[in-house]
């Protein structure tokens, strides 16, 4: 009797989870394994042959890949800290009970991340055109003498990409920080105030340590997002001037669809991106989560 019940329960269990297991295997795991094999192959798509590690070795001498990789990591190193810091500052300001119209500000800052990637990219492109409003403003306040070539100068084009993604994603991360802040007990701040801690000290000694899990989470998701950066670059600069702003994702796309397809090499680069994400996430977990 007991045996029967256990068996029936067992059966029910199988019934419930097997559809999802089968689906995730067919949709995700098998293509992943298939892609891994593809990354060891080369040649025209209908006639690919095994080349071992050749695709992975080729990356080291491929200047376009190295440029794309260094651009991607530059965005990561410069943009993610700026964005997270901004998001944190803004969320602390918005969390202040004395501030009026908080909901309005919150909505305004969150709004960029519900706009379509393509349309905001096109708007950024217009704003930062040589005769666009950004240059006009900067010239009107006499910060610059001649218009900045945001789109055609290799340095400024990178700055423009960083400005764009910061504008788009700061509000998104701010929401996580806001919810994190709401979980911090106000009594801690009261105690700190009585002990004579300044606002800055409260921020660095209480807020940041208490937000650590959120910082870790946003850092990892932002890292993943930045390593997969594609839309903004493709729509604002097309990777140009030259390859000055191109990213790994864009290079993977070009190798698969823009050029005569080289799926082997493209998947090999995809796996390098995956490995980079795993390694960076591990480092962040190690650095940020040790006291757990």
């Amino acid at each position: 009797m007991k045996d029967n019940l256990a068996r029936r329960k067992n059966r029910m269990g199988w019934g419930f989870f097997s559809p999802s297991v089968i689906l995730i295997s067919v949709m995700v795991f098998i293509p992943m394994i298939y892609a891994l094999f593809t990354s060891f192959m080369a040649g025209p798509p209908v006639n690919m042959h095994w080349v071992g590690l050749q695709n992975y070795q080729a990356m080291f001498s491929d200047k376009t890949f190295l440029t794309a990789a260094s651009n991607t990591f530059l965005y990561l190193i410069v943009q993610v800290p700026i964005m997270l810091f901004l998001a944190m500052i803004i969320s602390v300001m918005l969390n202040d009970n004395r501030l009026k119209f908080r909901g309005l500000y919150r909505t305004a800052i969150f709004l960029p991340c519900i706009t379509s990637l393509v349309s905001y990219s096109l708007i950024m492109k217009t704003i930062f055109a040589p005769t666009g409003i950004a240059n006009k403003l900067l010239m009107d306040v006499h910060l610059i003498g001649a218009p900045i070539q945001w789109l055609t100068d290799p340095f400024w084009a990178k700055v423009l990409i960083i400005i764009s993604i910061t504008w788009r994603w700061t509000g998104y991360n701010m929401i996580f920080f806001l919810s994190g802040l709401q979980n911090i007990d106000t009594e801690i701040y009261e105690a700190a105030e009585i002990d004579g801690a300044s606002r800055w000290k409260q921020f660095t000694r209480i807020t940041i340590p208490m937000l650590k899990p959120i910082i870790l989470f946003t850092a990892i998701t932002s890292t993943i997002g930045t390593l997969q950066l594609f839309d903004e670059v493709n729509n604002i600069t097309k990777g140009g001037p030259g390859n000055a702003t191109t990213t790994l994702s864009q290079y993977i796309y070009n190798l698969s669809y823009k050029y005569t397809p080289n799926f082997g090499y493209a998947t090999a680069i995809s796996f390098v991106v995956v490995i980079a994400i795993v390694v960076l996430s591990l480092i962040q977990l190690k650095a940020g989560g040790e006291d757990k």
Partner: protein
Amino acid sequence: MKLKHLLAGVAVIALGALLTACSGGGSKTSSSNNSSGKTLTVWCWDETYNTKAMQDAIASYKKANGKQKVKIVTMAQDDIVQKLNTGLASGNNKGLPNIVLIEDYRIQGYLTSYPDAFSDLSNIVKKDDFSSYKVAAGTKGGKRYGVPFDSGVAGLFYRTDILKKAGYSDADMQNITWDKFVQIAKDVKSKTGTYMMTQDPSDLGLLRIMMQSAGSWYYKSNGKTVNLANNQVLKDGLKVYKELMTDGTVEKVSGWDAGVAAVQKGKVATAPTGSWYSSTIQGAKDQSGKWRIAPIPRLSGDDSVNASSIGGAGWYVLKGSGNVAGAKDFLKKTFASDPKLMNTIAKDIGAVASLKSALKQPNYQAEYPFYSNQKVFNDLLTWAKKVPEVNYGSGTYQIEDVLKDPVSAIVKGANVDSTLKDAQTQAEAAVKNQ
């Protein structure tokens, strides 16, 4: 326990089905070739240009051959390229069109990657009926796979009023060299304050125009050997390019639309580009009567001629989609032979035909008030005959992406020979697996 086995069985079957689907690339899918008479599907890009031309073709075909239905699907060129690649690579012909428009620069890549996918059209495309460089673009191994469509013949569009102010008459603009062009650019900028042209540093179309005018390309004529280092034509072209980019006569822009805006707002004096640009220029109706088209400038040495090409495309028939005979018959009676259709297309979209017999048609002999009563179609098609043939190879865009950074380094002053040598190594590695 039974259920476990059952589930395991289902999983194995699902897995097996998937693996066969994945490995479909190698095996031939048995497509239905008995579907003759079925609706033909055509893929092309640009609603106002290629689609319009195809609609004209369908209308003229229907008059003579009532029954055959033809359906056009318009999408962005990038999407066509992507869908074709995924469709052909997976070996799954379902959903692919019967006829597809492919850009000349890309077709060799398709013919190399998918040798069995395209139908040999040698018997409906007569070599001598078309501008020879257009036929060459769609030829591989002596077989002609493409019906040439619009000619990408290049011309120097220029503003007569601005050049007159700078001291140049129409006669001064005919059959000039690029060195002369640079000189004119300086005069135009200093005397009128107008830029000579716009240039997107990421678009090397100008270099392509220069190379083809001397019968040279990123590839040697076999379409396989990368031809960057010690390519004298490219070096001469780069010399001109560097001068234009550094002497302040050219406005640098990013993206296509910025260049169009500059032309339409009257901010530039010339546009050295393909004949298909005509409709864009005519968008600025207030500039009617102020434009003319001169032959594209040539390089000073290198056997360069005052004729070149940029862009342009052709129609191709996919074998796997069935009704090959129907598709061939359609193309044979329209784009491959009908000068009257070319006449209509010239009127509707301003495309210059590749079909030589179009020259005698009324619209080709007409004078156009927008271009100061110049017989522009007549002139463009006449120049098209002189365009040297080159082999675009299978990796034009890939090599060009490799070349973009070296070119901007050269503009900033890097040594041409050593930079091109590096670029050669890079490009060779990039196209190795094709």
